[in-house]
């Protein structure tokens, strides 16, 4: 069997419908919502604030702490066990590393910026949605940054290279590769690149080109959403 037409009828280089908004959590210093298809991510940023316990402080530069969490009811009906898991810990770490190159840490020595990412509803591409939301929330919090970070998953199903897979596509019975990519759009510097499955060198290059194009579009959505909060009513 060959994957000719996508399950939800999208083009192979088309992302799901994206919606974004900032300032969704009033008590946080910065916050954002990012929705791509059925995947929904909320991010709240607190800080820069004092870092405790004190031994974690770094006198040369500030610290960025990320926490990624899928809510218990967020999956396809199977309850996600609440609390930290091996998977969520790993994704927290890669999210942090994807955001780090954009954040100017030298501006707040000995202090910390906390980023909390919650996913009330998931349908693949959660870490990418989380990174997009987190980057917007950081900007909304007024943190000094080089650029925003945009993220999307690309992949391969059978012999088709495609962008932004759903869970159903990922579970396709055959050759599947899932590659989350995060990038700072202005310099096209890649800050996250992971892969599940297998792909040829040529396939990977093709997938990255596809990701680049999709990310530019996502970047525009993020940018407009951040500005919208300050538009005249």
């Amino acid at each position: 069997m060959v994957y000719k037409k996508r399950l939800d009828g999208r083009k192979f280089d088309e992302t799901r419908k994206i919606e974004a908004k900032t300032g969704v959590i009033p008590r946080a210093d910065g916050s954002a919502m990012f929705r791509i298809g059925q995947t929904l991510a909320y991010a709240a940023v607190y800080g820069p604030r004092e870092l405790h316990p004190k031994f974690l402080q770094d006198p040369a530069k500030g610290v960025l702490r990320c926490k990624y969490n899928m809510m218990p009811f967020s999956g396809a009906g199977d309850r996600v066990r609440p609390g930290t898991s091996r998977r969520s810990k790993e994704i927290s770490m890669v999210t942090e590393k994807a955001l780090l190159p954009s954040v100017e840490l030298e501006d707040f020595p000995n202090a910390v910026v906390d980023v909390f990412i919650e996913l009330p509803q998931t349908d693949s591409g959660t870490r990418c949605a989380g990174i997009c939301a987190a980057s917007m929330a950081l900007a909304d919090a007024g943190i000094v940054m080089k650029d925003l970070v945009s993220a999307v998953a690309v992949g391969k199903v059978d012999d088709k290279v495609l962008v932004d897979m759903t869970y159903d596509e990922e579970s396709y019975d055959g050759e599947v590769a899932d590659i989350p990519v995060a990038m700072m759009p202005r310099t096209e510097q890649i800050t996250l690149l992971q892969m599940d499955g297998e792909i040829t060198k040529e396939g990977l290059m093709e997938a990255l080109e596809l990701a680049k194009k999709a990310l530019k579009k996502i970047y525009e959505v993020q940018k407009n959403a951040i500005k919208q909060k300050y538009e005249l009513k």
Partner: protein
Amino acid sequence: MGKLLVNDKQVVVPGEIIAEGMDFIPTAGTYRDKEQVIASKLGLVNIDGRLIKLIPLTGKYMPKKGDTVIGKVIDITLNGWRLDINSAYSAMLILKDATSQFIARGADLTRYFSFGDCLVATIINVTSQNLVDLTMKGPGLRKLPEGRIITVSPSKVPRIIGKQGSMVSMIKDATGCRITVGQNGVIWLQGEPRSEMVAVETIRKIEAEAHIQGLTERIQKYLEKKKESKENGLQEKA
């Protein structure tokens, strides 16, 4: 000749290119990458000749030398007081800068300023590690008596104060409250409970609409309306 890619007073996000060319000079909130001048914060672009500046729209307070802030005493140390100044960094007020009175060695420092006291103080020094030193010597610097403390976004403070303090004087005149605004976004008010409420509501309104033009006129109207309704309310009672 370089060219500008955004208009004056336009909102930009971090990473957005503001101008191209070496004849523009990046200042606060912007940086240069080769030929481009880029925003490093969410803010409003301010173009002043060749200088490009960003006026931040959000963000926590970052201590700056010369700022007058309102702080709360959180600790007493060997040589002074530690104050929370609504920032990631606390500030030190040392004995020498606290008062011109003589304080004997080993004196009980809570007699001067105790835990929870709110002080108006000026920042005299900020180090690279953001260690902050304060002074209480200067006009208007004092321990605050009872009143109401509210916090606002520090980026909105210039609008709350207004040009030469015009906005805050307007609120003072309209409500009869005593108001002190700290650069760190902490505001102290004292007055009749009802007028205190009006003053707080007005400040919240300024905070929400700070970036929209014609603010002063709107606030003036708002205060007049509040005053009228208060007078009407009194008549009904009588």
